[in-house]
């Protein structure tokens, strides 16, 4: 049998108040073993208080070939940033 063990992406919450962050991936037969393996591999020194695992195959990603179309248009929309607007100094911090 040359069936391969599925790949899982691992997300860890470093501490309460912060969101889960992607830290890497792990191979495991099922979700129970994936959480266990993620704990052993990615939290040996107090790196987190909570783990999420998601099957890598279940992740839907944006198309890298469309990165330009998707993300470049924001570059010329500088009016979305506060610094675009001029407020006289006398008005004070705003």
């Amino acid at each position, binding site marked *: 049998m040359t*069936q391969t063990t599925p*790949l899982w992406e691992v997300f860890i919450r470093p501490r309460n108040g912060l969101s889960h962050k992607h830290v890497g991936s792990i191979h*495991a037969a099922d979700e129970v073993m994936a959480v266990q393996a993620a704990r052993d591999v990615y939290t040996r020194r107090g790196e987190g208080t909570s783990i999420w695992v998601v099957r890598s195959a279940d992740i839907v990603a944006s198309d890298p070939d469309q990165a330009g179309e998707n993300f470049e248009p924001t570059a010329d929309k500088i009016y979305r940033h506060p610094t675009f607007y001029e407020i006289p100094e006398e008005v004070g911090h705003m």
Partner: protein
Amino acid sequence: MYSQGLIGADGSTTETQEFLDAFQKRIDAEEKIEPTDAMPEGYRRTLVRQIGQHAHSEIVGMLPEGNWITRAPSLRRKAALLAKVQDEGGHGLYLYSAAETLGVSREQMTEELHSGKAKYSSIFNYPTLTWADIGIIGWLVDGAAIMNQIPLCRCSFGPYARAMIRVCKEESFHQRQGYEIVMTLAQGTPEQKAMAQDALNRWWWPSIMMFGPHDADSQHSDQSMAWKIKRFSNDELRQKFIDATVPQAEYLGLTIPDPDLKWNEEKQGYDHGRIDWDEFWRVVKGHGPMARDRIKDRKAAWDNGAWVREAALAHAEKRRTRKMAAE
């Protein structure tokens, strides 16, 4: 590991000059390359080779030290050694997953290690004869690994750089626990000090060989440097390591087994004696004293673990079908 990771790498590539120039421009601008980005085939192949061999080195590196876990002289030493060996297993796993983002499977890499097609660091083909070897490995071998790995944290390939940042955070404890072991022996009875000196005598030259061939003989370095897979040359890193290590040995009252080692005022660094490159290549090619055992042990672990992997998959499948039936 590390500088030797490039051994056997093939950076040749067939893309148009225009594509290569555009890629080089991104590299020169210190942009990180992520797995789904367009990249030259040679870049991808070089990284698969290097990251895979680095991962193998971490995993095979567990064997010489694992050899001493049950015989550690105290509970404190045993707990530390267990934690260190477990870390090395973790390093191997971070690295395998970084390589997998480039489209190579874990099984493929394992297969290449077992068949001898992929290499691992020559250092792990030497035997660990006494407890002092465990101290010397932490001090010198992990010390050399740190020298090599710190610049890799800035490698142009994102997943490799991120894996290296995790690894580097963990390595410092490895070197310090090793130095502490050697220090305890060096300050102990004359027999204990002699044991530390004997281990240093056996590990010194293999440790400085870890940085790989001299720059003039290192075929893969130029392209890897241009692509910022590698940041310093083999000789530069070796020099840094020697300059850092000599005073540490002096502090312990141990002698580095190189009669030609002397301070060079002009270059503000140490000159060292001739390295036996014939021995290096023999060991890299698998003729080291322990080479056959290492691969035999890896294969045995893989083969004897097959039923566990199969049972876990069968169990997962059973749970999945039961769950589906219940829905």
